[in-house]
């Protein structure tokens, strides 16, 4: 019983309170909470920006803002949603749940963990500060190139580009540190008896994500650093006049950018099967097949990047290679879809909020995946490239596939994290509002894209008006529905019905063996897995 005495002592000394608790904490749950809170705040900030974009697109012509400002909103919306909302949410879950799921007392490198989080707020400030500076006449606002930083525009752009480059540096360092921490935790800290092939699916999803991050974030960091030296130190990596090549940036960027898509999604593919299994009350189908598929997707994701710029000009053999390799990803993904559906098959299913989100997620993410196959077709892509079809497609994968998946996770684990049940009725209302408003926002955009409306332009031809109006109204409904989500979370943190340790009837896994909320130091006695 000596282990309990030791931890008991620790709980009494060096336990700062107030702001210092959060600044100096090395506790995985505190850090996880900070990640998730930061993510939620930035989700609202990024959402507010996109409402500005949709408001401008409500009618053709320019009503609310100058095109320059519109372009800034678009770029910063994307950077915030990807790097400050989705990625921190996944990392937050990793911090909270991976130690609990694998029976570890904490993350392997707690100080690194703290540092990893505290790099995020400065990076968010760097991203948004140019907006404020422009109000005082300094610079001409935030980055206006879109999130892709394509030169030559990004070489010519104002100080917003520099701010964004440094923000990406910080974000990159933060996520590489987070990834190293997760890899080390998963390799060294598993409970006795838990072999790699007994790890929960969420841990598998994150292990592959972490390797992808470590391998590709440095490439992004390298590319934006070259951009920085092109801008200020007289190099010509991307300037054709100096012997460089702007297309090279696209290769470097998407070498990171395509794996990034899977970085955002793999953690979700990890915990969705766990949610499905919980509410279907039967074991996960095809655990091994899912693990191998995750690996296959992770490996393929780094060799398909050029499908993002088919129209930039490429020899036909290269076009064919990138088309076929991209389409090949749909095979392991189809295996995953099959396993998810088969997990539910003939289960005794109930539809609590997490399950609603998970099932809705399968359908909507499926649409995102299938429209991606259309875009991967070189011949079709010539029409769809840079159109609203692309916008609709990646919002189906990243809003439905990413954020709605994360929401499923939030509702699933919130009772475990807070010790209280959330308001089930409000959760269901939130799901239905989100799902309906989401589809109403983005289905019209598929048709707008097919009809030829280009993305990233604040104005459009009048024949696109009606669909844009529908899309804008629905986008506002979607945005304001999220306030329900925030309200539900806040009320759940403050109080509510006590949650049991197991929370869900069919819950499986070590995290449900602890009390709700778990003690500050989890697993004072190491569990063993048979």
């Amino acid at each position, binding site marked *: 019983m000596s282990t309990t005495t030791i931890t008991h002592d620790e709980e009494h000394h060096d336990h700062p309170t107030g702001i210092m608790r959060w600044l100096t904490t090395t506790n995985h749950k505190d850090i996880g909470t900070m990640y998730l809170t930061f993510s939620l705040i930035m989700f609202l900030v990024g959402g507010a920006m996109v409402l500005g974009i949709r408001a401008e697109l409500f009618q053709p012509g320019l009503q609310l803002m100058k095109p320059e400002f519109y372009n800034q909103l678009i770029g910063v919306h994307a950077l915030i949603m990807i790097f400050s909302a989705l990625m921190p949410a996944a990392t937050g879950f990793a911090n909270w749940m991976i130690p609990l799921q694998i029976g570890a007392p904490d993350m392997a490198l707690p100080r690194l963990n703290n540092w990893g989080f505290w790099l995020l707020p400065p990076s968010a400030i760097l991203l948004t500060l140019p907006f404020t500076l422009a109000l005082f006449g300094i610079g001409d606002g935030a980055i206006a190139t879109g999130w892709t930083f394509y030169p030559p525009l990004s070489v010519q752009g104002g100080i917003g580009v520099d701010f964004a480059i440094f923000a990406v540096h910080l974000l990159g360092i933060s996520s590489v540190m987070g990834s190293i921490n997760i890899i*080390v935790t998963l390799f*060294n800290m598993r409970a006795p008896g838990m072999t790699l092939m007994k790890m929960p699916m969420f841990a598998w999803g994150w292990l592959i994500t972490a390797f992808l991050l470590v391998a590709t974030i440095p490439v992004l960091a390298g590319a934006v650093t070259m951009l920085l030296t092109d801008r200020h130190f007289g190099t010509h990596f991307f300037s054709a006049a100096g012997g460089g*090549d702007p297309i*090279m940036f696209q290769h470097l960027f998407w070498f990171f950018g395509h794996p990034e898509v899977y970085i955002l999604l793999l953690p979700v593919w990890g915990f969705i099967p766990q949610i499905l299994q919980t509410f279907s009350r039967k074991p996960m189908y095809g655990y091994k097949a899912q693990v191998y598929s995750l690996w296959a997707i992770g490996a393929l994701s780094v060799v398909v990047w050029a499908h993002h710029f088919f129209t930039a000009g490429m020899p036909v053999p290269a076009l064919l290679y990138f088309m076929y390799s991209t389409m090949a990803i749909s095979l392991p993904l189809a295996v995953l879809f099959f396993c998810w559906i088969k997990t539910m098959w003939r289960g005794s299913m109930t539809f609590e909020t997490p399950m609603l989100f998970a099932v809705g997620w399968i359908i909507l993410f499926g649409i995102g995946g299938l429209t991606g196959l259309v875009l991967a077709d070189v011949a079709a892509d010539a029409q769809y490239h840079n159109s609203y079809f692309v916008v609709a497609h990646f919002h189906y994968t990243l809003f439905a596939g990413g954020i709605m998946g994360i929401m499923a996770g939030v509702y699933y684990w919130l009772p475990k994290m807070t010790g209280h049940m959330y308001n089930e009725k409000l959760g269901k209302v939130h799901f239905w509002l989100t799902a309906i408003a989401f589809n109403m926002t983005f289905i019209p955009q598929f048709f707008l894209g097919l009809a030829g409306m280009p993305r990233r332009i604040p104005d459009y031809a009048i024949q696109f008006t009606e669909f844009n109006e529908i899309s804008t109204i629905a986008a506002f409904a979607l945005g304001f529905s999220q306030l329900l989500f925030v309200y539900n979370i806040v009320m759940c943190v403050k109080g509510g019905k006590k949650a049991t340790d197991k929370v869900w009837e069919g819950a499986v896994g070590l995290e449900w063996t602890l009390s709700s909320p778990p003690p500050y130091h989890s697993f004072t006695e190491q569990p063993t897995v048979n």
Partner: protein
Amino acid sequence: MSVESNEAEIASSKLKLANKKLGLKMLWFVAGAIAFSIALVPFYNLMCSITGLNGKTDNSASSIAKAKVDNTRLVTVEFVGSVMSGLGWNFYPKQSSITLHPGQIATVLFEAKNITSQELAGQAVPSVTPGEGAVNLKKIECFCFQKQTLKGGEVKEMPLRFFIDPALPPEVKVMTLSYSFFPAVEEKK
């Protein structure tokens, strides 16, 4: 009790050490990824010069001697001239296209005019479509080999002497050679 707690402490400090070790090993992984990202630049340029992936032509003078004229087929070469923003020039090819046998040497003229009153230096950057043919376009003499300087209002004819390597893939029948004049880059600040 104390023996047990000692053992637990030893185990936990061992684990800490192992974590640190693996963490540092992962840093090597990151360092490798950074090195890889830098190595991608020369690798990309190498790939382009081998395959003509980005339509870049060999920007040094080729010797005339060896090429034999392939009289069995004709290739049409179209010319495009453009000026990038920041350079106050007009620039266009004096003939829009030429049809010739591979191996045959041709000379075409481009005309540039400085429409400002200041002296301006420009650098022409070539690009060939389709990229498969880029490596087969051999230049003997070209205004693009070095930067060109025009005084205010000056008009200059710029010659290009080139031939098509007979090794050109047979499916390429029409090629477009585009020159874009960029403001010349200042040498080393």
